[in-house]
């Protein structure tokens, strides 16, 4: 079979593919006009797009930005000779209200700042590839920028100078040091910047203070509660054993918050008065309300979700069935019924005379709602952990709580982040339901705005604007969670 043998003496060069398969034409052919059926489909789709845009674009393009009422809009549109056109004046006049609701205009810097700081607080949780330095840099930068929107005073100028110095210094080190330099510095024992998670922890207390204002001592006292819990645990664990200590460590801060924190705050405030002008939750509205409800509910539901998920995973029958009943009940009823409970029943369930405002009640029910979903997300994260991790922790002698805290939860939570983000997206979208119980979120406000004689009769502009607001938020979040999911999949650490 010698005829089979063959040796190539010269290697063939790479050639270009036949022209019909490459370039724009090749691409078009392959992706749009591949066969009769595909061509028809392409034409139909393009036709649809053109038709829709042809109707919408002329309507959107309407020079009514400065109109002061619907009648003026009608005049302007009529003058421009079009049959119909949008009336953008309402957005022009009302967009601050759509964003902030009735939040006092001169204080709106506070929620804005809280919002930007939220991202900075989330950075170390969500993007662990951003360096500490970058995080502190961003924080200093945001604060620095914020100072320019406040009334200037001598104190403010000092603060500005300090922040500017911090921005410049950290910015300089950011530019000047490459990653490898950094490694050397660390090896040489250079001081590291503090972990940005410190700020995240602080933010939890900072945010309510920025939003609701009041004396600084209330959030400080709230934070103290956690310190007290920790101290109780540290001091009692060796004496009473872990389990008792944990129970007490939960009970002590609760007592503190319920009974003593108010006293503490007012006492301290009397000694050292420092605070922001209080804003009542009733003045929250528009997108601010949606974001506040969404963020608070998710943040608070996280620990509740963890407890429920652990309960559901536990082999203690009663604990497990209680968790299951709670989770399934909440997941089995529509959110709107829970909001009805918040608006008409919650006051009946609480001791006579307790009166907390509707927004807090809604936040409570939204939290309860989110925690059931969160529990399922976290359960998924727990289930994704190999059994070996539990066994290894056991074999090293870690007890249940230590194993959970040091080994299981850090991993399970990380796996759950995409799920948490999508729960948040869902909840954020669902905050629009509060309009049904009379809260003035963007949808609720749109009804109020239409009750203004100037804007009575406006429909599409308002709804379109609200839809766009939500779209921008949720779309970017869902993209981000997809990115996280991809990263977690390839992240073998």
């Amino acid at each position, binding site marked *: 079979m010698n005829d089979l043998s063959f040796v190539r003496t010269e290697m063939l060069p790479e050639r270009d593919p036949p022209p019909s398969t490459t370039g724009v034409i090749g691409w078009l052919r392959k992706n749009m006009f591949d066969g009769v059926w595909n061509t028809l489909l392409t034409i139909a789709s393009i036709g649809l797009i053109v038709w829709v845009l042809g109707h919408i674009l002329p309507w959107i393009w309407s020079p009514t930005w400065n109109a002061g009422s619907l009648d003026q809009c009608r005049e302007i549109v009529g003058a421009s000779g079009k049959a119909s056109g949008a009336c953008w004046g309402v957005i022009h006049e009302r967009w601050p209200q759509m964003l902030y609701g009735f939040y006092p205009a001169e204080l709106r810097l506070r929620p804005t700042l809280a919002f930007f700081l939220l991202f900075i607080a989330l950075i170390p949780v969500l993007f662990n590839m951003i360096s500490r330095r970058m995080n502190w840099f961003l924080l200093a930068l945001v604060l620095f920028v914020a100072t320019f929107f406040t009334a200037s005073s001598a104190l403010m100028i000092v603060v500005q100078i300090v922040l500017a110095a911090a921005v410049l210094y950290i910015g300089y080190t950011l530019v000047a040091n490459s990653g490898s330099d950094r490694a050397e510095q660390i090896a040489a024992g250079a001081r590291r910047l503090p972990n940005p998670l410190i700020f995240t922890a602080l933010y939890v207390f900072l945010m309510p203070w920025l939003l609701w204002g009041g004396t600084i001592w209330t959030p400080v006292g709230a934070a103290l509660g956690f310190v007290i819990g920790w101290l109780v645990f540290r001091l009692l664990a060796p004496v009473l054993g872990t389990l008792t200590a944990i129970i007490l460590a939960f009970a002590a801060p609760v007592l503190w918050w319920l009974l003593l924190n108010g006293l503490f705050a007012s006492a301290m405030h009397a000694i050292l008065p420092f605070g922001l002008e209080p804003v009542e939750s009733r003045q929250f509205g528009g997108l601010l309300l949606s974001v506040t409800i969404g963020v608070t509910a998710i943040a608070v539901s996280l620990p509740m979700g963890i407890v429920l998920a652990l309960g559901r995973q536990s082999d203690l029958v009663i604990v497990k069935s209680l968790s299951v009943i709670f989770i399934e009940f909440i997941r089995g009823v529509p959110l709107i019924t829970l909001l009805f409970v918040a608006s008409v029943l919650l006051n009946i369930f609480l001791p006579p005379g307790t009166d907390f405002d*509707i927004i807090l009640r809604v936040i409570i029910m939204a939290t309860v709602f989110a925690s059931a979903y969160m529990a399922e997300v976290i359960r998924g994260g727990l289930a994704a952990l190999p059994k070996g991790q539990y066994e290894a922790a056991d074999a090293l002698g870690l007890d249940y709580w230590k194993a959970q805290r040091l080994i299981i939860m850090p991993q399970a939570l990380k796996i759950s982040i995409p799920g948490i983000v999508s729960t948040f997206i869902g909840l954020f979208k669902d905050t629009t339901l509060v309009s049904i119980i009379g809260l003035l979120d963007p949808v609720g406000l749109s009804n109020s705005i239409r009750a*203004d004689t100037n804007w009575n009769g406006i429909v599409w502009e308002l709804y379109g604007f609200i839809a766009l607001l939500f779209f921008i938020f949720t779309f970017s979040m869902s993209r981000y969670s997809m990115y996280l999911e991809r990263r977690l999949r390839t992240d073998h650490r």
Partner: protein
Amino acid sequence: ATLDDVKARGKLECGVNTGLVGFAAPDANGRWEGFDAAYCRAVAAAVLGDPDAVEFVPLTTKTRFTALAAAEVDVLSRNTTWTFSRDVDLKFEFVGVNYYDGQGFMAPKNLGVSSAKELDGATVCIQTGTTTELNLADFFRANNISYEPVPIETNAEGQTQYLAGACDVYTTDASGLAATRATFEDPSAHVILPEIISKEPLGPLVRHGDPEWGDIARWTLNALIAAEELGVTSANIEELAAGSDNPEINRLLGTEGNLGEMLGLEADWAKNAIMAGGNYGEIFAKTIGESTPIGLARGLNAQWKDGGILYVPPFR
């Protein structure tokens, strides 16, 4: 007691509609305006001396009664019809009537109907959660004609549906009909049918069981109405408060007698209330009267002397 709470708080919490043209709606600065809102300001001015010491609490038809019952609001000023069962069974106390209304129908002219009795088979837009749907059912049953109800949540929604022809007629309180019609591109193309199928005395209400607070709410309303009757306006009130020939005005404005003290308020309580937004007539004219786009005539809501039925007990 509610009065002490309000004073301690420094603010009056007042339940209003989440948005009803002319009666309550926030403007671009978040300030609530309208006929119902003006009453809230008057009460705040009477009690606290400051017409802006009001916290407006927007309420839906579903949440309004629970909010009042649970003391989330001190007074509900939200175009609520005074009915027996609400007063007695739901345990509220209506403090008076600030607007005499009645349920009517609006139809496009080109529908060619001149009476509600011709509406057999028509599609009717109604707002849910109010007395209107019960009145409607009763009216059609009584006349033995059929109809198709289209329940809607808000007035704005109803207006959209009606204008697009998704319902033949729109029924709600006549004031609402007029207000709605006023904002149409072509109001003259719509008629309000002559039948008024119900009595709808709208008024503010408070909880049962706190008669002192009820008195304050009631007499603030009466003060506004009496002021109009007595010719006290925000323009001349300073002058009249210095003392006048009419003893009733003097009693009202606190220059004579101790009416304020009896209520547990300052002597100039009524003066403050009237100064907050003017007397009843002024408020009416400013918010829903004929000079506003809503253009409601006084009608039944005129003073008894002018052929209306506004008739307040004397201040003495």
